[in-house]
């Protein structure tokens, strides 16, 4: 079989897409955004709750999409939980570099290892947007500001 295909659809990715972590609604979300990829119709909603220290106390997502977009969203929620916003931003920058096949020097070694399964996407330029959808939606959720009436 095509090596790059095996790399793309490796067990970690398929497992995340079949059994997404942090999937479902988040009550008391402080930030929320919906992402949409008009190319394929994939939708993802990212909800998160920031605590008083500006950490991602909780993050969940909902949506439908291809294995790549679902796995990416699932891994993202796993990795962002507990991070401060600057840490989250750094991780996101590193991730975006990684999936585009660029130097991802700002990724901590541990994060790089955890995201290793995503590196294969750089071989599939038409699919990079699938992988980045949830991350951009996370960014938009922060940019759109706090939900009024959300948790403190």
């Amino acid at each position, binding site marked *: *079989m*095509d090596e*790059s*295909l095996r790399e*793309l*659809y490796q067990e970690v990715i*398929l497992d995340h897409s079949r059994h997404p972590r942090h999937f479902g609604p988040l009550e008391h979300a402080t930030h929320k955004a919906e992402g949409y990829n008009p*190319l*394929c*119709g*994939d*939708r993802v909603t990212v909800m998160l709750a920031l605590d008083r220290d500006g950490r991602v106390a909780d993050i969940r997502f909902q949506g*439908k*999409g*291809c*294995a*790549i977009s679902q796995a990416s969203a699932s891994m993202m929620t796993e990795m962002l939980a507990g991070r401060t916003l600057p840490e989250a931003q750094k991780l996101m920058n590193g991730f975006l570099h990684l999936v585009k096949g660029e130097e991802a020097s700002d990724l901590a070694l541990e994060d790089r290892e955890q995201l290793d399964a995503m590196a294969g996407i750089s071989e*599939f330029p*038409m*699919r990079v947007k*699938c992988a980045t959808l949830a991350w951009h939606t996370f960014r938009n959720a922060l940019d759109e500001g706090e939900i009024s009436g959300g948790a403190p």
Partner: protein
Amino acid sequence: MTAPANIIPTFDVVRARADFPILARQVYGKRLTYLDSAASAQKPRLVLEAMTRFAESDYANVHRGVHFLSAAATDAYEAARRTVQKFLNATSENEIIFTKGGTEAINLVSYAFLAPRIQPGDEIVLSVMEHHSNIVPWHFLRERNGAVLKWVDVKNDGSLDVEAFATSISPRTRLAAITHMSNVLGTVTPLKEIVARAHAKGVPVLADGCQGAVHEMVDVQALDVDFYALTGHKLYGPTGIGALYAKRTHLKAMRPFNGGGEMIREVTRDLVSYADPPARFEAGTPPIIESVGLAAALDYLMGLDRAAIKAHEHALLSYARERVRDFNWLRVIGDAPGKGAILSFEAEGMHAHDVATILDREGVAVRAGHHCAQVLMERFGVASTSRASFALYNNRADVDALVEALAKARKILS
């Protein structure tokens, strides 16, 4: 419906394949299996050669200069118009307007024909299986002129509900805009009956023929259709050119579309008067080289036995359906009687884009997504489908490659 098997051999697909240089190439070291012709068809060598020959020997701008090449180019451009006229069996070449594609042809009708006739509350009838190019121009009239869009449903097999179509026409209907062949389902609509039912209530009909012109034999006089839009690149011709057929009586009453050179009679500081159709609707330098390519493509098609091509494509569809019958995880969408050679499907637990990516690495090109038909996707409750579309150059080996790649996708993804 499958054509009788004894008709199939009359189309020589081996010979036809030799006409298309791109079919000889490989992708990822694999044989190219091109099943995306409904998005854009490949070009026979003679189309490319006709364009090159023209550009190398007879090219200049049209309808402008008095010099030798301008006359030669004008002759070629107007000859191309007559080729389109012949292809559609229009009464007059002046009923053929060159556009940059099917989308522009429909936008032209929306802007130049319908917009001035719309009062708030007037209705436009369209089917749920329209391509966005036959939806959005009418949404413009909804947004800007207060038009109401009336949607005609399809049956579960994807065929058009003609009774629902007829009852959707009211005294306020100003136009019916219906596809001749669905780009997703392959459904061929009974255009002649649609036109007759609409005309009985005084409603003109626009047919989106971007797929229909490729696979059906179109006779606009027999159909009595008011407008018929087609695009060159799906007809084995070049991109950047399409055509609108419109009845002469409509054209004469239509306001101009784009303003610019070529479409005027006279321009002064205070006034402008317009040229007669078709020039009135062809502002600016038209796609001249492309017109030559389109004519070559249409001549190529008309030189083949089109009934045999249709039977050949239908036989491939039947073969594909037979081969995927054992895939109980695959749901085919669109099963209308007499449908064209398009196989749209949803694979259980597999997203269309993942399927298409795996197929791609096997050299199999299919389309995945909503196919610019989101209203239809909603009708069938799917976010996206994979679509294999067949053209005259496809063969059974293409179907075999598709089926084997699908089995592989299933193995990887499930």
